[in-house]
């Protein structure tokens, strides 16, 4: 090390020390104010509560995310119009991560200290990256989809059941309602990942319970032509097919199955169905054989909660697309609002207080948006094991007609934590 470098290092050290001495780092937070007897922390002032949303407005899920974002905004606007929460106006801070986990993590960092909780975190890789951080920070996260893995995080509030329970219920539905005989084979086409693979676990558990077989076919979002998979399903002699993929794949599969003369029920779980499919050539096949197992009431359901959701949405986005995202976003809004109210009542409107309040909630169904009363008091357990079963029906808005709400036997016995 020569003299010049030594000098430089000394200089650096001195500067660092000086900077440290005179720096006023803002990270110490918003302080713990006590407005109106309520303890507050990050994201809450005397007049406003800020909640965040980390969503995908420019990536592959942009369209669905836009619907949800519009509904969130409409919901909170209506809440604010009614006087807000805890005497405060609720502000929704929406950030777009474009399905890029790096971006999402950075945006999370910028948001974490300014919000009391996250209304939504969208996208599998993003959820995988952000949930652990939020868990470390004790920050509420709602609406991250329905992966079982989220049950392991105390801060996560899954709006309904899990994909695995949807899968299990789907098998129960096929056996009990559609009378699939013992020993028959059910095809399950799924995306590898925390959505499809999780659903497959549920269906495999249920298959064992109910004496049927699962014939799995793994695909990725890049597969848009499922001819080869359909042929394999036919070869396997399946009597029903579960689909845990995106709408494109559901459409292709049902179309090809139909063309191959495989006339069996096709059951998609939550995000697989999109009413736009009915306008494609797979429309007739889906209309005849398509079912949907969801944690969220279909768009056309006549429950007051769903009607309210649709009303808000249609006022906010008159030309927007119809779909399950509308009641979902509404339901999530209701869940967060309930938690905020409870936190307010408990006098602790800090992020930690919000998480605690969320876990004190039970018996919420958002006026029929959810399939039964949600219970968040048991850590590591889904809030419900019930699902909505709908029939694809081109006559109704949103394309799904509610058949029943069910909790199958193997869904009840499914061991969530393994």
């Amino acid at each position, binding site marked *: 090390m020569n003299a010049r470098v030594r000098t430089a290092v000394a200089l650096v050290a001195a500067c660092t020390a000086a900077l440290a001495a005179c720096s006023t780092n803002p990270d110490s937070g918003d302080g713990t104010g006590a407005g109106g007897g309520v303890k507050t922390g990050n994201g809450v002032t005397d007049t406003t509560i800020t909640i965040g949303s980390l969503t995908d407005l420019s990536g592959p899920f942009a369209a669905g995310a836009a619907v949800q974002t*519009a509904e969130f905004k409409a919901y909170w606007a209506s809440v604010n119009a009614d006087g807000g929460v805890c005497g405060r106006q609720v502000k929704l801070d929406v950030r777009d991560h474009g399905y890029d986990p790096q971006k999402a993590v950075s*945006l999370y960092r910028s948001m974490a200290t300014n919000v009391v909780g996250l209304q939504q975190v969208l996208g599998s890789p993003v959820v995988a990256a952000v949930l652990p*951080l939020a868990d470390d920070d004790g920050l509420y996260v709602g609406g991250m989809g329905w992966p079982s893995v989220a049950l392991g995080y105390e801060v996560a509030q899954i709006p309904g059941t899990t994909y695995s329970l949807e899968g299990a219920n789907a098998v129960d539905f096929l056996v009990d309602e559609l009378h699939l005989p013992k020993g028959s084979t059910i095809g399950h086409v799924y995306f590898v990942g925390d959505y499809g693979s999780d659903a497959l676990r549920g269906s495999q558990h249920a298959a064992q319970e109910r004496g049927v077989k699962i014939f799995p076919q793994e695909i990725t979002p890049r597969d848009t032509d499922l001819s080869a998979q359909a042929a394999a399903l036919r070869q396997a002699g399946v009597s029903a097919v579960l689909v845990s993929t995106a709408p494109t794949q559901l459409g292709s599969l049902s179309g090809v199955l139909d063309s191959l003369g495989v006339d069996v029920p096709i059951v998609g779980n939550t995000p697989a169905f999109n009413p736009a499919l009915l306008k494609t050539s797979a429309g007739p096949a889906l209309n005849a054989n398509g079912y949907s197992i969801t944690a969220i009431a279909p768009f056309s359901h006549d429950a007051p909660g769903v009607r309210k959701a649709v009303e808000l949405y249609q006022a906010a986005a008159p030309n927007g697309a119809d779909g399950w995202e509308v009641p979902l976003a509404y339901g999530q809004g209701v869940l967060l609002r309930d938690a905020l109210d409870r936190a307010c009542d408990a006098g602790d409107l800090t992020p930690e207080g919000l998480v605690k309040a969320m876990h004190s909630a039970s018996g919420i169904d958002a006026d029929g948006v959810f399939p039964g009363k949600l219970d968040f008091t048991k850590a590591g357990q889904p809030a419900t094991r019930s699902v909505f079963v709908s029939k694809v029906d081109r006559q109704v808005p949103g394309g799904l007609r509610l058949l029943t709400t069910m909790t199958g036997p193997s869904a009840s016995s499914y061991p969530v934590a393994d």
Partner: protein
Amino acid sequence: MSDFLDSSRLPDLADRPARRHPARRVSARRVSAGRRLALVLALVVALGLPLFLNDFWLQAGLFSMAAIVAAVGLTLLVGTAGQLSLGHAAFAALGAYAYTWTAGDTGAAPAGLGLPPLLALVAAAGCGAIAGALFSPISGRLRGIYLGLATVGLVFVSRHVLVNASSVTGGYNGRRVEPFSVPGFSFSNSEPDYLAVAGVEFEGLHRLWYLFVLVTAVAAALASNLRRSRSGRALASVRDGETTAAAMGINVRRAKATAFTVSSAYAGLGGALMALAFGRIAPDLFGLQLSIDFLIMIVIGGLGSVAGAAVGAVFVTTLPLVLTEYGADLPFLAAPGSGGLDGATLSRFAYGAAIIAVLLFLRGGLAGGLGRARSTLRDRRRAPSAGADGQAQPGRQADSGTAKDPGTAKDPGTAKDPAGPADRPEHELPSHSAPAVPSRSKETSA
């Protein structure tokens, strides 16, 4: 023996001074002092910055530094050795998982080896290197763009392995990353739970920042040493002509394999840093897009130079963030489904356009552009006294542009350009134009 060099005893060969030019030596030293000052400044900024940054920028900085390490490695391969790889996400993934597995808790599920994180960091680079070396039957035989496309396969194969080898990788859900620590000190929010120097708290992100600065600086220094060493010259020589390199005693296949190995070691280390910055890793983080981003970084930054790779890495990592941070709040967020232009879409457009603009207008990428701007400034400042420096031989045709090649562009001091930018010829020698990849027509018509 010493009389051997005594030029007075030789016939006066060239009618020009045989000794080195004193003026040149002076100016070269001045420049390198300037460079050193710049480096020191950069270091001061890197060390002092966290005190002013919020968590958003700290996090962005961590990702940038992880990217810098991987990009520096890639630029050694692409810029220095003239090979191309689109498979570096696979090596980054390997490094990330190697770190996580080696440092991971023995009792956890999925289990790890429970070894010290420092060792795990070395293991990450080592695994990258080994994987790179194993690929040498292909990397030693293919050239340039052909190799680049062949390596695309690595990304898909590695993803398949990561998803399926769930006992080590945790499958599609991935696994938690053990925070970096040395005995008694953790680079996270614990151990010590509270650390403050002169009243300023140093949280996990701050601590990681300094770790990353250290690793990045060392990695960049090693790369820049390597470029200037015997091996670096051998790689550049292979890039500029395999036949010639072989004639100078360089084992071309081995040199190419070495370049690939070193480069993948860097990718492995960069992957480990990414893992630390994320805190939890999953196969989805290491898709083809990451490989493509690495390549964008080094090309945008300016091929071949370490500084260029660093600038490019920061550009590619932070630009979308900045655009999102300040673009998404624009007032005209259109209604969903209406197909209107919203802020998020606008920021994607801006990102794509920025890439296009750099490639169209900045020869030598960002680093080349910066270097040129700097030398233009300096020339302007020096204009009154120009020519007195004795830089060029009168009568000899003056130099062509300094910045046309990325290798020298980052250091405009080494290539004197008395003619100034305005007089640069438009054309360049044909073999000079494509440092990275052999041109197609030459390959096929020879």
